[in-house]
């Protein structure tokens, strides 16, 4: 979770003289021991894109027509609407939460600070299912209202409203964690200066504090929006026509891989525009720094009588985002207890999920490392390109990556096909950005001088990496590791298509159960998945808490 805590840290650590900075920025020839693996990783990441291009151009003349249909336009605008509104609402929920848990005397502040990040462990498709069960037109809530109030039907939650609600509730932690880190790193002198200049507390917040937080909010909101754009589970359950769903329907209904690939390419373009926008913003606020660790403890605002309103707010967010899904899952579990899967099968699924998550995390973190080092230590056109294109995994829909590896795996590397190895490669492509982001942030905090010291003491590039860089980057590597493990355990399309036959995970178990509407049976694996992923995320956020306080 540290990735997000520090996601908005500056591009470069403080440097003593402008001259040294020039040296650090000077283009140096990247060493082959790093460049070759980084290029190999880049090829791997590009391969699904190549697959999509090949597929999309299959249909030849039909392509432009399928691209410019009115539907593509409406899908684009729906996607843009969803991404924008989710980013805005996630930020609106997250900023007050971050403020309350870092800068006030909120009762049980530490507890709330951890709880507020927890919705990240709820798979969004499980969350959406439980929201439908609870708030659907004839869901659980309607059942409660029917007796006393005679309400027979709640307004439909399907479509935009439900998708927006679910994605907001389960992605706001991205903004929360990023802003929380920014709050902690904020120099209290700024606020004090504003107060001395005669600004009231409110004006101080909006004019001195909030502008400082902007990059952190933008970074977090981008993650929320990217999630919204790439998520398939929520929009398909909520039946909202955005890119991922349109792509899926195209595959599912017409077996038309060309049209689906063309749509996927439009989605890639869409995502690139989004990410480029954030980069552009980040570029403009280069001198901004957070997470340097304030020298002095920050003053906490006394909430006074508003204390309980603050607790109420945190409680309400937690109830909706974690309480509601847990409640529905427990409700299903009770109801469907008799039809539950055998314990040994659940255990097997949990074991597979956890070991797959850990293996994928190790693999992905390792694959991302050469690219991360190159982009931080050997800045140049080539290395920057390598870094940015590694973010493609964020832009590609899961099903497209899955099919690309099905295609390449079965046709060209049958010895790897339907083995855990190919699945791990697929995960790595998909989740490389998470590992890369965490690694970059922690590498940026290590002075290049320390690595050079090792070189002058007789260690080579790889030895330095092993003896100096890696141990120092451990917190960042761990954060990336935790995040990848967490998301891999929740992942569905790649797992379904690339896992060895009869290799079951908690996620596929949930999917199997929901296929036949056996929600009672879905409840057990879903609850186990949440508990299993909550453990690392709690430890990670706790670590972050101790480090920064």
């Amino acid at each position, binding site marked *: 979770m540290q990735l997000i805590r520090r996601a908005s840290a500056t591009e470069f650590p403080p440097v*003593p*003289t*402008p001259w040294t900075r020039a040296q650090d920025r000077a283009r140096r020839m990247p060493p082959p021991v790093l460049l070759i693996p980084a290029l190999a990783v880049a090829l791997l990441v590009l391969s699904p894109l190549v697959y999509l291009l090949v597929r999309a151009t299959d249909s030849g003349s039909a392509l432009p027509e399928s691209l410019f249909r009115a539907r593509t336009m409406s899908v684009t605008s729906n996607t843009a609407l969803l991404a924008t509104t989710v980013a805005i609402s996630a930020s609106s929920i997250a900023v007050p939460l971050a403020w309350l848990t870092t800068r006030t005397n909120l009762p049980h502040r530490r507890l709330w600070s951890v709880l507020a990040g927890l919705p990240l462990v709820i798979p969004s498709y499980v969350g959406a299912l439980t929201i439908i069960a609870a708030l659907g037109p004839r869901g659980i809530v309607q059942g409660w209202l029917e007796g006393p109030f005679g309400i027979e039907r709640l307004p439909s939650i399907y479509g935009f409203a439900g998708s927006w609600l679910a994605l907001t509730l389960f992605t706001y932690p991205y903004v929360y964690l990023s802003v929380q880190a920014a709050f902690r790193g904020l120099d209290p002198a700024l606020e004090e200066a504003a107060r001395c200049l005669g600004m009231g507390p409110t004006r101080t917040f909006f004019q001195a504090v909030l502008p400082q937080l902007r990059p952190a909010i933008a970074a977090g909101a981008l993650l929320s929006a990217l999630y919204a754009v790439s998520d398939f589970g929520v929009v398909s359950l909520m039946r909202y026509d955005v890119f991922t769903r349109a792509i899926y329907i195209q595959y599912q209904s017409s077996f038309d891989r060309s049209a689906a690939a063309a749509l996927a390419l439009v989605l890639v373009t869409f995502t690139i525009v989004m990410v480029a926008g954030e980069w552009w913003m980040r570029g403009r606020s280069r001198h901004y720094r957070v997470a340097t660790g304030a020298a002095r403890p920050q003053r906490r605002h006394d909430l006074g009588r508003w204390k309980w309103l603050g607790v109420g707010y945190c409680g309400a967010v937690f109830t909706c985002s974690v309480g509601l899904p847990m409640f529905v899952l427990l409700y299903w579990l009770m109801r469907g207890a008799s039809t539950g899967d055998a314990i040994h099968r659940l255990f097997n699924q949990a074991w597979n999920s956890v070991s797959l998550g850990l293996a994928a995390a190790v693999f992905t973190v390792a694959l991302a490392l050469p690219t991360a080092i190159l982009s931080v230590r050997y800045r140049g056109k080539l290395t920057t390109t390598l870094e940015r294109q590694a973010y493609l995994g964020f832009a590609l829909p899961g099903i497209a990556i899955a099919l690309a590896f099905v295609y390449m795996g079965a046709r060209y590397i049958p010895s790897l096909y339907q083995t855990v190895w190919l699945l791990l490669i697929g995960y790595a492509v998909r989740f490389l950005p998470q590992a890369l982001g965490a690694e970059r942030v922690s590498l940026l905090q290590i*002075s290049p001088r*320390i690595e*050079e010291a090792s070189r*002058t*003491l*007789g260690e080579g590039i790889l030895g330095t990496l092993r*003896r100096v860089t890696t141990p120092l980057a451990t917190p960042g590597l761990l954060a990336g590791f935790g995040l990848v493990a967490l998301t891999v355990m929740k992942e569905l399309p790649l797992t379904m298509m690339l896992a060895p036959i009869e290799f079951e995970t908690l996620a596929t178990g949930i999917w199997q159960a929901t296929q036949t509407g056996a929600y009672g049976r879905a409840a057990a694996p879903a609850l186990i998945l949440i508990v299993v992923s909550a453990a690392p995320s709690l430890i990670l956020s706790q670590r972050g808490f101790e480090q920064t306080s």
Partner: protein
Amino acid sequence: MVANSPVHETQSGQRTLLCLSVQKRFGDVQVVRDLSLSVVSGQILALLGSSGCGKTTTLRMIAGLEHIDGGCIEVDGELVAGAGIHTAPERRRIGMVFQDYALFPHLTVARNVSFGLERGDNARRRVDEALDLVGLGGFGERLPQDLSGGQQQRVALARALAPKPRVLLMDEPFSNLDPDLRVAVRREVRDILREAKATAVLVTHDQEEALSTADRVALMIDGGIAQTAKPEVLYSRPVSREVASFIGEAYYLPGAANGDIVETEIGKLPLAGPAVGAVDVLLRPEFVRLSSSHEDDCRAAIVTRHEYFGKYHMIGVQLRSGTFIKAMTGPGTHFGVGEFVQVSSTVPLIAFPGLPAQ
């Protein structure tokens, strides 16, 4: 070739480090041009220059952390850079002490020092030796963060010395220390280097540091070496106005030279070397002697400024021609603003060819 160059005095002994016409560009900026220098075994050379003059880059090129764009670098007669060769830093056996020390924060002091050593009993002994050398015996199990700035500095030194490097490079090693501490640590480091018989290059922008610590000082201006000499020579016999102005305070007085004597508006003054024609002589405040005079004396000058520093007075004097010079006088003397004084020199002076009239 270096030895024959007019700006470099001849020296004897075995050359450990030799840089010849080294060039370095960052983008369009030529940061090091035609740089040549040499260091004799066991000697400490200070590379002195203002910030941005390219001295740190030079050090990094010697260490192998930067590639050179031209020229060559030899260590112990072995070509390490130039002619298409670039020996990786880890294979040069050149130690480096970084400005911010760059200690490994995840390793204890002892592990920091043993980092560059092969494992084994020998290494342990060497670590103890190195730590004893820097006076930190018994600190081995501490973490760098728990040490003071001066102690960290010495750990960095011990770490760099432990593998017995052929040359030790130090990049502004004292700049992160408190001024009080700086002088003491400087002396200590100098003694340590002497004891270790280390060949060292010290980069600094502090001339006092360079002059007091080094056996020889190379003054770097605009990416090139302006003069390399023993500290006292550099101070008293600068080869150019630039060098003279960089080291200490320099004021110039125009005059007409004729052999060992120069005729100036304050009278005839002795020259350190023979010269002929229009020259400017270098007057440093501490070479100037003032004595009381009166307004009628046509050679008298007027005191226009007075600053008191406890140990001495710094007196600003304007000559009749308008030329301004400064004089340092002992604590007992006193010349007030507006008084008339007579100016003379205590030592033979250096003359530079006179600047063409503006």
